[in-house]
């Protein structure tokens, strides 16, 4: 039976958007899935489980134009071990920018890891406007692509998908400003305070 291990490599995994994407994937995948967060202390335990799964899906955000350190450190530990069975590795990546292709470098890094370490590379879903899309009516587009990702992995017909908010960039700038203003307000921080040009008060 095909099973997918979903590993959340977000630095804020328990309260991350990546967790929400993983939940969606589990909902749409027709086989069994298991979800776990990558933590600094659980790499060995996660790696031990790999042989039980046909597929491994990494879910993570774009950090500084590439893969987050949480994932980088896990991959470095993974390359020290050869599991009895190497699952096919797929990737679900999101960035806060509207262009899903800003995720391309991180995807290429994952492909390179797979090539260097003999893991088959599977499907990719690149999400743009990933910080906000979950809380907008555009979630229907996201759902459709996550469904396609899940189906491609289930059928082993691996493909590359991408999704973002279907709005002009100028409108995205306005929408993202409102999103961040509201975020700041919840923390008692005004727009003017958030726009400070000072770094460490200087």
């Amino acid at each position, binding site marked *: 039976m095909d099973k997918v291990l979903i590993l959340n490599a977000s630095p804020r995994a328990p309260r991350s958007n990546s967790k929400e994407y993983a939940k969606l994937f589990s909902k749409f995948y027709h086989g069994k899935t298991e979800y776990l967060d990558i933590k600094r202390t659980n790499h060995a335990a996660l790696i031990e489980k790999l042989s039980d799964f046909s597929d491994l899906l990494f879910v993570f955000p774009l950090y500084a134009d590439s893969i987050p350190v949480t994932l*980088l450190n896990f991959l470095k530990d993974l390359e020290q071990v050869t599991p009895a069975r190497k699952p096919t590795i797929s990737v679900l990546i999101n960035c806060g920018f509207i262009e899903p292709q800003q995720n391309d470098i991180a995807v290429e890094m994952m492909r390179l890891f797979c090539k260097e370490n003999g893991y088959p590379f599977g499907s990719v879903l690149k999400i743009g406007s990933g910080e906000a899309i979950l809380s907008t009516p555009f979630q229907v587009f996201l759902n459709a692509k996550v469904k396609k990702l899940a189906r491609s992995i289930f059928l082993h017909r691996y493909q590359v998908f991408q999704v973002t908010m279907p709005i002009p960039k100028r409108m995205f700038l306005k929408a993202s400003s409102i999103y961040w203003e509201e975020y700041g307000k919840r923390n008692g921080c005004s727009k003017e305070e958030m726009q400070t040009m000072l770094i460490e008060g200087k």
Partner: protein
Amino acid sequence: MNLVLSDRSLACLEENRSDLTYLDLSKLKIANCVGCFGCWTKTPGRCVIRDDAVKVYPLIAASDRILYVSRIKYGGYDTVMKTILERSIPVQQAFIRLLDGETHHVQRRVLPKKATIIGYGELSSADRQIFCRLVERNAKNMCFESHTIHFCSEDEVEDVVRREVASWTRS
């Protein structure tokens, strides 16, 4: 200000120099970014984790010439350098702007800089290709007005750094 950020010690820069600031990141205590957005939405411009990173990102922002020295892993920066790059997001605002037709974060008081990156290790052609594309992306988000990349083996790092820094004093 001229700044050298390295993920390993560089004997050639150990003596005190008035013309540049050199930081060996491997000797600093810098935790991973926890993705809390505090530096954007709670204490703007200040990271909530008060470790050595808070001394480093203001220097990155204030530099107009910078040299990054990093081991390359899977075509990207290895852990030490990547950790400080992730912890440097207080130099940006949460708000988004258009830059060259693409969406990017608004920068705070960050000087445009001439950047040189020395990527070292046992590098495949794929490592080099991906890294060049990564630095192109970094240029937009890290305020590079120009950038140069040098690849070398670990043994060659000191020589390449020495040559690069000497070229700064000549120019």
